[in-house]
């Protein structure tokens, strides 16, 4: 055991957990990493490419090495950083990326092949033959590389999303963030303070520095208590602000139950969208390593992390430790280790300077570096550049600190290099409303961070017109922090690791530069440096420095790769949130849905709607049987179909007639009250937009119907026209799509059926209520209804609408009343068959590419009025004589089945793009005609009736001869409609 005294863990609570099945113990307040260290577990995983033994490297979310699989069964989660995994009782963790036990990974032989596995190895090696790319190379590479394994089961946890609003968002609860939140909270602003850790305080929890005369962590706890008691402050721990988006919107992931054995039915994680008026980024800084030979052995750690484990977690990463630093901060690790009774074997400073602090018992080696390390599963000895050797079991390395500028770059802000810090600080244009404070802004010392947190919050408050409360800053010191630009030990002959997660070495970066990958973005892609879960948080700067050195440039000249969200990984489950399964997206039900369900309907998704597609009856062998029957029974007597999904727009106003006359291409100015008219809308460019009918219910009151698909788009378009194009018209629009249950009643007995339902006193005779009549009626003893004599099927037909609440009942009533006529409910398939038989255009024909001219409705487009699209519809190219025309098609061999999407090729021509004359848009088997029929567009179709052409579908490998005919397969004169 490597537990030592002190720390912020709760020793009264002991948690049992397992690592690779081995039982271990930790305490409340531990991370999995600190508990592993406390249990003496140095080796925690194998590296990505070479399967090298790896240990815990950091104490935060930047961890490149200690990736583990957590939990089991369907809850198994790979690639989880042990350094941010909060320990709980019963946690089980497994190491990743090895065959056989962790200690004896069979794949470790890869490491012996390292001389061949340089940067770009895969690109150079697996090029030939091409046939092997996907079948041989990829599976083999995937099997040997990679990290954790998925459970391959559905995620049993639930996730949620949410929205929060604040005046000031403070990102990070270290000294700067806490001071910023206190400043804003005390001023009464609405504050959200988010921190990725479960214990707010940031580095205050890991250091021995004092604030206001008390231990830093105690001051942090006091600040948190004060903030938590404020009603205007929302403290969000275990919450990572992972992205900065437009208009002060931030993305945050809250891990609600990851620290518990079970989620207990509550969301495991919540993806928050934070709306902030202003933000203070106080994301702190990340320590960076120095590259030297074999610097990846377990036991080599960041110096600040070693300090965290000792000070915060009471866990000693080693008993005899050496510190290698290029800056003043590294010395504090040596001091804290010594103060905790641990042996500091040596302090190696790359700078030639006198000792900063007195570390009793430690050898001090100045102006030197570590050249190599030894030790099979963990470090046991280091060799210095002067060939001295030191026996140790832990190596604390500090290469200085990088401000966490990531969120400042999410809108393409470019960080600025500061020579005095040897680091990038926020620069360029920051996301609107954001300022940066503390270490993230380069204020790397405690007093400076506190002061900047307060000052930046005050500036933001003033911007918002909020007066900050007078306050004195807490007392603290500025610790020494001088740093040198020292990135890697050039004397190292052995591989020196820059990116531990992706196994990228100094040599790889040099090679990439030699091979021409000199841009930093290319370097990243060629070597994979900076990719994967840690996104190069520890490796980037060293990589840039080495690239700069090779290219003879400075680091700012080389620049950085652009940082993009997310800052740390966000599970796909959290991004999906609660949108899963049936509730992936909203669904809409027709008013007669329950009736349809009870009567054997098969449903089809039409946009968000679920519509009855057909109603199978016992004995029917397939959908065609049902659809054919529904068509035959409708055409033979009467059929009923729920057509509620068509859009309905209530149009009222003194100028409603003039308005409709402008939005439709055909005339609407003179539609009489009590009449319905078919209307065609064009886009501004003259392409057909939508079609439907509009009924005039009274002088200033119209009801427009649209296609199901375009209901919302047409409404939006009309609102635009009303508000922006013609604001001086008295026109008012409101959707009533959901308000009325509407049923098509079609077939020779439609009138007879309706007579039984419509209340007495309404004359439904052909004379009193002819084709294209409409009116308000009452049904079933007084219920208000609307009746339209319109037909999509080509039969004598009506559409009857009742308030939606009666829709389900109405369907039953219509069927009951229709019993004596053998009435049949029909679904969207029969509806489609009948409209194709009748030659009516639908979505397949109004596809956004076709004009009224193409649809055979060119003459409907009025040129005597001002309306949307009529001018541009007359462009020469749009009205060519040889334009495609909507026609009917039937197979020459009636036994053949037409295929929608087939292209038409004139007889004798080759089936090439150049000879393409059009395409088949809709096909159906016509029970009325006994063979397959189709609609389609073909060049000059209107003059080619009777011609035989070929319908070719290369996708299906089918072609057949078809005859061009009228699109109106049945009742071309429309006699049935008017009886």
């Amino acid at each position, binding site marked *: 055991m490597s537990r030592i005294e002190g720390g912020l863990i709760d020793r009264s609570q002991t948690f049992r957990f397992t690592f690779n099945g081995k039982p271990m113990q930790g305490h409340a307040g531990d991370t999995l990493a600190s508990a592993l260290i406390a249990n003496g577990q140095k080796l925690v995983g194998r590296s990505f490419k070479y399967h090298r033994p790896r240990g815990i490297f950091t104490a935060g979310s930047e961890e490149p090495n200690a990736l583990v699989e957590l939990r089991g069964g369907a809850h198994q989660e790979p690639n989880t950083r042990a350094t941010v995994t909060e320990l709980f009782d019963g946690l089980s963790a497994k190491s990743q990326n090895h065959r056989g036990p962790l200690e004896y990974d069979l794949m470790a032989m890869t490491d012996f092949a390292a001389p061949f596995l340089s940067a770009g190895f895969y690109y150079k090696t697996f090029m030939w033959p091409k046939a092997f790319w996907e079948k041989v190379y990829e599976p083999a590479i995937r099997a040997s590389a990679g990290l954790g394994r998925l459970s391959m089961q559905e995620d049993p946890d*639930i996730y949620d999303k949410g929205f929060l*609003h604040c005046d000031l968002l403070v990102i990070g609860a270290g000294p700067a963030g806490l001071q910023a939140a206190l400043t804003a909270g005390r001023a009464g602003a609405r504050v959200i303070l988010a921190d990725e850790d479960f214990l707010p305080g940031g580095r205050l929890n890991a250091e021995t520095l004092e604030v206001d005369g008390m231990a830093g962590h105690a001051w942090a706890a006091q600040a948190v208590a004060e903030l938590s008691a404020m009603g205007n402050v929302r403290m969000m721990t275990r919450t990572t602000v992972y992205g900065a988006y437009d208009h002060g919107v931030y993305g945050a992931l809250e891990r609600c139950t990851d620290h518990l054995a079970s989620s207990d039915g509550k969301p495991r994680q919540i993806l928050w969208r934070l709306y902030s008026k202003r933000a203070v980024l106080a994301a702190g800084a990340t320590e960076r390593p120095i590259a030297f030979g074999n610097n990846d052995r377990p036991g080599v750690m960041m110096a600040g992390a070693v300090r965290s484990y000792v000070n915060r977690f009471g866990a000693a990463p080693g008993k005899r430790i050496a510190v290698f630093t290029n800056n003043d901060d590294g010395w504090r690790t040596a001091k804290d280790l010594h103060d905790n009774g641990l042996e500091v074997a040596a302090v190696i400073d790359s700078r030639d300077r006198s000792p900063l602090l007195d570390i009793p018992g430690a050898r001090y080696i100045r102006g030197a570096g570590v050249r190599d390390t030894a030790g099979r599963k963990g470090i046991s000895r280091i060799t210095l550049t002067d060939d001295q050797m030191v026996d140790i079991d832990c190596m604390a390395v500090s290469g200085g600190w990088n401000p966490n500028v990531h969120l400042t770059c999410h809108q393409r802000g470019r960080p600025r290099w500061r020579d005095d810090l040897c680091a990038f600080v926020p620069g360029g244009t920051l996301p609107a409303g954001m300022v940066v404070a503390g270490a993230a802004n380069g204020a790397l010392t405690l007093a400076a961070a506190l002061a900047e947190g307060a000052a930046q919050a005050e500036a933001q408050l003033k911007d918002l017109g909020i007066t900050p409360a007078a306050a004195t800053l807490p007392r603290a010191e500025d610790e020494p922090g001088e740093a040198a630009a020292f990135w890697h030990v050039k004397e190292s002959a052995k591989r020196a690791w820059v990116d531990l997660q992706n196994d990228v070495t100094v040599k790889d970066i040099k090679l990439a530069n030699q091979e021409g990958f000199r841009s930093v973005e290319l370097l990243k892609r060629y070597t994979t440096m900076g990719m994967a879960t840690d996104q190069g948080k520890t490796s980037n700067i060293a990589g840039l420095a080495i690239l700069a050195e090779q290219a003879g440039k400075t680091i700012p000249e080389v620049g950085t790769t652009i940082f993009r969200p997310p800052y740390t990984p966000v599970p796909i489950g959290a991004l999906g949130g609660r949108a899963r399964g049936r509730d992936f997206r909203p669904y809409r*039900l027709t008013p007669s849905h329950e009736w349809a369900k009870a009567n054997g309907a098969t449903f089809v998704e039409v946009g968000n709607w679920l519509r009855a597609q057909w109603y199978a009856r016992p004995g029917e062998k397939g959908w065609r049987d049902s659809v054919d029957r529904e068509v035959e029974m409708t055409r033979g007597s009467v059929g009923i179909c729920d057509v509620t999904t068509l859009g309905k727009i209530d149009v009222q106003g*003194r100028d409603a007639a003039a308005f409709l006359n402008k939005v439709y291409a055909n005339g609407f100015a003179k539609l009489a009250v009590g009449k319905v008219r078919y209307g065609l809308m064009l886009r501004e460019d003259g392409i057909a937009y939508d079609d439907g009918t509009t009924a005039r219910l009274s002088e200033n009151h119209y009801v427009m119907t649209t296609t199901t698909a375009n209901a919302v788009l047409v409404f939006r378009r009309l609102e635009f026209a009303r508000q922006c194009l013609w604001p001086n*018209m008295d026109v008012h629009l*409101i959707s009533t799509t959901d308000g*009325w249950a509407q049923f098509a009643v079609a077939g020779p007995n439609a009138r007879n059926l309706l007579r039984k339902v419509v209340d007495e006193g309404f004359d439904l005779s052909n004379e009193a209520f002819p084709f294209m009549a409409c009116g308000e009626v009452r049904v079933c003893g007084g219920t208000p209804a609307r009746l339209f004599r319109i037909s999509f099927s080509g039969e004598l037909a009506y559409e009857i609408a009742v308030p939606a609440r*009666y*829709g389900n009942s109405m369907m039953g*009533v219509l069927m009951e009343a229709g019993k004596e006529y053998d009435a049949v409910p029909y679904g969207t398939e029969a509806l489609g068959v009948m409209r194709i038989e009748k030659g009516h255009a639908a979505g397949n024909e109004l596809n956004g590419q076709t004009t009224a001219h193409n649809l055979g409705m060119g003459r409907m487009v009025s040129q005597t009025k001002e309306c949307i699209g009529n001018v541009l519809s007359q462009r020469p190219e749009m009205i060519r004589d040889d334009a495609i025309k909507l026609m009917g098609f039937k197979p020459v061999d009636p036994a053949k089945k037409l295929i929608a999407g087939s292209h038409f090729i004139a007889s004798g021509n080759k089936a090439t793009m150049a000879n393409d004359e059009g395409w088949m848009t809709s096909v159906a088997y016509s029970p009325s005609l006994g063979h397959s029929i189709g609609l389609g567009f073909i060049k000059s179709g209107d003059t080619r009736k009777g011609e035989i052409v070929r319908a070719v579908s290369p996708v299906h490998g089918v072609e057949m001869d078809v005859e061009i005919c009228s699109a109106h397969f049945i009742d071309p004169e429309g006699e049935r409609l008017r009886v």
Partner: protein
Amino acid sequence: MSEFHLTAEPPLAGYDKAFAGASLKAPADLALVSIALPLGGEDAAHKAIKAAYGCALPEVGKACATPRKTAHLLRLGVDQAFVVFEHAEPDAERVVAEALKGAAYTTDQTDVWVALDISGPKARDALERICPIDLHDDAFAIMDLARTTMEHLGVIILRTDEERWRLLSASSSARSFLHALETSVKNVS
């Protein structure tokens, strides 16, 4: 008398469920009628509304209860408002049209919408999970009104009390709407 009879089956009819900290209820017999103010006839329409309901139309984004508490007026836009009142029969539009004596255009919206009232100490927390609008006391007071989207559904949200909100959404997607709210309430309770 007709031999056939229609039964009203509004979506979510009778739904009333209490969870820990919040309740969801579909108000019964809620009628909605939209009012559109004629261009150039706004003054007359405002007068007619005042005469009919005893109070002026509130500002856009606000609602008010009529003095006799028989209805709520919801001002959705410069020229558009809803009258919301209890009325079981399917002729709510006629009732409002007659009250306004032709001074405004009216459209029945009763069956277009479905309403859910959410109330209780956890109601705001539940709404936080689906409602992008800021519902803080300072930002959304009682009788404040907004059109927004929740879980991809268009919603009108009205604050009716300290811890009570009325939500209106399209009736055809009532089940998805209810699922969105039930899930939110369960996730926070």
